[in-house]
């Protein structure tokens, strides 16, 4: 079953809506709560990144009996050095984002830690696609 969300890059206060909606659905499906929590954290971090670093994009969530796949596509600036971006504490977040409590450089690490697989495809100037997988029984 697939769900698609258009995420606006305009309004920071709306960021996180898609993650909340998925969370609600996972609860209706009876997914174990530790898995819901891991999914919530991973998807939320990736959704926020898409808003604060890339002006929004599209999220596709695919719920299968044994896994949750989250694909976040944006046409933002891309990530020049993936290895550096993955490091704890590295952040290019601007002042506005920092004021809202983002920009600690923890997001990608958190996704890595909470998901079963994280894959990032990024081309500078074209955009970034983040793919997150979570096992339902894990």
């Amino acid at each position, binding site marked *: *079953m697939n*769900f698609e969300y258009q995420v606006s890059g305009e309004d920071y206060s709306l960021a*996180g809506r898609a*993650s*909340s909606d998925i*969370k*609600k*659905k996972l*609860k*209706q*499906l*009876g*997914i174990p*709560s*530790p898995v*819901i*929590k891991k999914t*919530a*954290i991973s998807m*939320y*971090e990736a959704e926020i990144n898409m808003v604060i670093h890339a002006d929004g994009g599209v999220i596709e969530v695919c*719920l299968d*009996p044994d896994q949750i796949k989250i694909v976040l596509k944006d046409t933002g600036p891309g990530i020049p050095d993936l290895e550096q971006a993955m490091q704890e504490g590295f952040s290019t977040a601007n002042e506005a984002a920092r004021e809202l*409590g983002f920009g*600690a450089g923890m997001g990608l690490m*958190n996704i890595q830690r*909470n998901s079963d697989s994280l894959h990032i495809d990024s081309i500078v100037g074209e955009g970034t696609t983040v793919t997150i997988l979570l096992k*339902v029984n894990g």
Partner: protein
Amino acid sequence: MSENYYHSVTLDEALCKGCTVCIKGCPTEAIRVQKGRARITADRCIDCGECIRTCPSGAKKAVSDPLALLENFDYTVAIPAPTLYGQFSSDISCNRILTALKGIGFDDVFEVALSAEILSRETRNYLKERKGNAPLISSSCPVIVRLVETRFPSLIDQLVPMISPMELSARIVREKLKDSRGRVGVFFISPCAAKVTDIRTPRGIETSSVDGVIGIKDIYRELSQAIGRVETEEPLSRAHAMGISWARTDGEGSAVFSENHISVDGIEHVIDVLESLENGHIENVDFVEMMSCPGGCVGGPLTVENPYIARNIITCRERRHLPDEPVSLPEEALLDSGVLSIRWTESVESRTTHLLDPDYRKAMQMMEDMEAIRQGLPGLDCGSCGAPSCRALAEDIVRGRTTETDCVFMLRERIRELTREMIDLESRMPPGLDR
């Protein structure tokens, strides 16, 4: 009604006009309007009282226990919530209010504010000894515990695993009176509808030590008169600022003495913060006070005074009850010696009241159907169907509780189709008559 599904918050059918105002404000989507009357789904209701606040017809009520219940006991003790002190002008002393409580029929009083002081100390200690750094969530408001177990079960382990000040007060009273003969009755004087439910179906403990919960508003008039009649004030009040402050937002929060605590009130704000906690986006905070009512318990559905005024009265009294030196209460010895314990003994279980079906595959199928139905609905969330949103109606339909024609727009569509069909049929005259 089964005790399991007992709720203090109820509907007065005779007053309900079926207006649908209440359905959208309900944080657990527990209300539907059907056949012109609101209905509260018992297993979803968390007794927050939001519907009582929003109902324009006064049809939602919080039922509490009657004062007549006192007659079933030989010796009765009132345990007033600190909020009671916010209901009367600050020139009326706490001693006077407590003396008046005895005037309306109680044999003795014990301030819940005192237990709040003890629990503040215990929470501080727990915060120190606890492992892990996920923020601790207060559990003194019963609505929060019920909200977490139904909507945020992944946060259950972050709840403070301790009984409420009400419960501790009742245990202290029982312990002090354990050698007295006859039946002792302990009654909470309450701003809170959820506490009425909580003593019948408690969380974290097996049974409550409280015998009845009496709403402040139900005894307000009698108590006011008794206050007027008091001739000599008995020295009954021992509470300090910290305990009294639990009546309002940030009383409990400040009492943990942590710079990194936050205090949240009002159920909508509480839900926002629980969402953020679940997303792991609240860091560097060690304690989160959560109160379902706006302003904290001073905004409780069983209060009389305006919450903002009550809050001011409470802070006035706090200033007057500031201790000169650090306090230690004699009751603390009951805990330190192990006579009384305050930890939860039962685990709080997740209650997935929004689960579509226990069978995952079936739930998936239902969700797929739900999505398909929702896409056919107009997406206006107008509420005319009696459900809070088009999505909620779609859910009700797949649960087999209702049909698509509850939606006025779908109904109009169906009528249009039928009309077309009828016109079409009308034009096809029987061959014998068709000239």
